[in-house]
């Protein structure tokens, strides 16, 4: 599946940001500087293509910290493959967020 997918630069950047530990939409926006109207639809599309998956955090953990539960995104195996391809395709991509450690 992952072999046939070619991502746009923006989608690849978002995928890399998720890979580097930004796990929710606003965090990705802050890191990439992309607007929410770009980040969220891209996340939906990446999820529908199986490159990332999402998971609600446990309700009891959120309640314990007296805050609403949050939805987290993470890279799937095929997402990691596509990211590698994208980094070859867009060599500057890795440099853009080189300072940030991987999750």
């Amino acid at each position, binding site marked *: 599946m992952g072999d046939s997918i070619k991502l746009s630069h923006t989608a690849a950047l978002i995928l890399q940001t998720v890979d580097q530990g930004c796990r*929710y*939409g*606003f965090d990705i*926006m802050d890191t990439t500087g992309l*607007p*929410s*109207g*770009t*980040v*969220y*639809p891209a996340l*939906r*599309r990446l999820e*529908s293509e199986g490159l990332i998956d999402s998971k*609600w955090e446990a309700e009891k953990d*959120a*309640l314990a910290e*007296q*805050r*609403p*539960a*949050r*939805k987290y995104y993470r890279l799937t195996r095929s997402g990691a493959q596509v990211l590698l391809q994208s980094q070859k395709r867009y060599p500057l991509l890795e440099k853009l967020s080189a300072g940030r450690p991987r999750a």
Partner: protein
Amino acid sequence: MQPEPKPPLSVVVARSLVGAASRLVPRAEREGWQREWEAEIWHRWQFLEGAGAWSVEEGFRLLLCCCGSFADGAWYFARRQSVHERIQEYARSPWACLAALLAPLCVLALATGLPATRQLLMPLPYRDASQLSIISLHSYTTGKESGVRAAMLPEWMEKSHLLAGGGSLAAFNWMELKRDFPAAPVKPLFISVEPAFFSLLGVNVELGAIPKETALLLSHRAWVSLFHSDRQLVGGNIVIQGQPYRVAGVLPERFWFLSRRPAIYFVMPHLPDNRVMALARAKPGVTAAVLEKELVSICRQDGFTVSATQPHAISLGDALTAPVFSFAIAVVGGLVCLVRLGNLRTALRRDLRVAALRRASFFAAKCAVALSAVFGAGLELSRGESSILLPRMDSASGPGVAWLYLLCAMGVLLWAWADQRARCRVCLRLLCFPVRIGCPGCLLLDWAGTELLCSEGHGVLHVPDMVVSWDNQADRWIALDDSWRDCFTHAE
């Protein structure tokens, strides 16, 4: 979780934006989608609040971020159905029906500016217009209006108790001048009037003065279209029918009298015609019918009346609004037709039980828009620029248009009712997926007809091929309960 502290205005607005954008997301996914956005808003606000960095600028940034929820919702919306399905779905909705009815009305308004309708809705540009009437001679044999004898006017002035005192009657007449202004875009109207005519209407001039001797007054439109708004013209002469006439003034832009055409008024101390129309101002509260009665009796006393003709008074307001009454009668005729042909009584009894306020509002809105379009189109077509708004001369209040209104009103109301029957009783979408059921030859204790389904799964409409004696209901609505909901999840 402890109670949330009072959120600042920007957070409240951000949540409202997300709530509005959530309408784009299919119902099945909406709750999770909204929860995700609201959690992000909460975390951003609380994080900055906790760090002491919450400010108006941050609130504004949060609002900008939440504007993206519309793009996010639109992604779900675009993914939900194919474009073709979405167009079909929209075409079935009640809003599409109303939009389709409003569209021709808007096109008509944009194309023509609806001058006749505006004329009808605007107040008449005269002082105390309700007291003004036109007196003419009505022929009972030909149905035509003509001028009354000029000699009658002094008699009426002297003997009438219902006219509003001195100067409350002024003669005027149409003049047929065919050779002048052949290049004018709209043929001007030539009207001869007595000097008291304008004071009777309560109109003053925009330029110049109302003359006492023979001179011309131009309507504003005639001044603009025939003389290119030439201010030097006032006080100068123009030649009409080979005769020079002094232009004494220009009337206000809002002023018109019985026609929208550009008009040239020949103000004369005494009209040369034997027969003239008369403009009368009655005392307050005196109707045109009462005034007419008095004027007829004065004529009889003086031996002026011929059996087949009689003075006829019509108020200026009535002359203008005559088509409204024709149309109202046509709508009543259409409703009677609907009650007779549409089996409305039994249907309404059944319908009212099914919580019909929304349905009734939709039916009323549909009829109102369609009837307005019919009336507007009829009025604009029949009351063209050249028409003169006197009942016998105005085609908008003639029998041809009245019959057309009646047929159109019947058509509109019957269509509206048929359309109403073909819609879901809950969401008012047009029913779809027609399925033929049964055998038309096997009606003994059996049923044959068509079933139509609401695409949202609210119910099924059974429409029998023929109404059988053991079941005299024309069509039957069967509501589907929530157990059917899973079959229609595609619609959400």
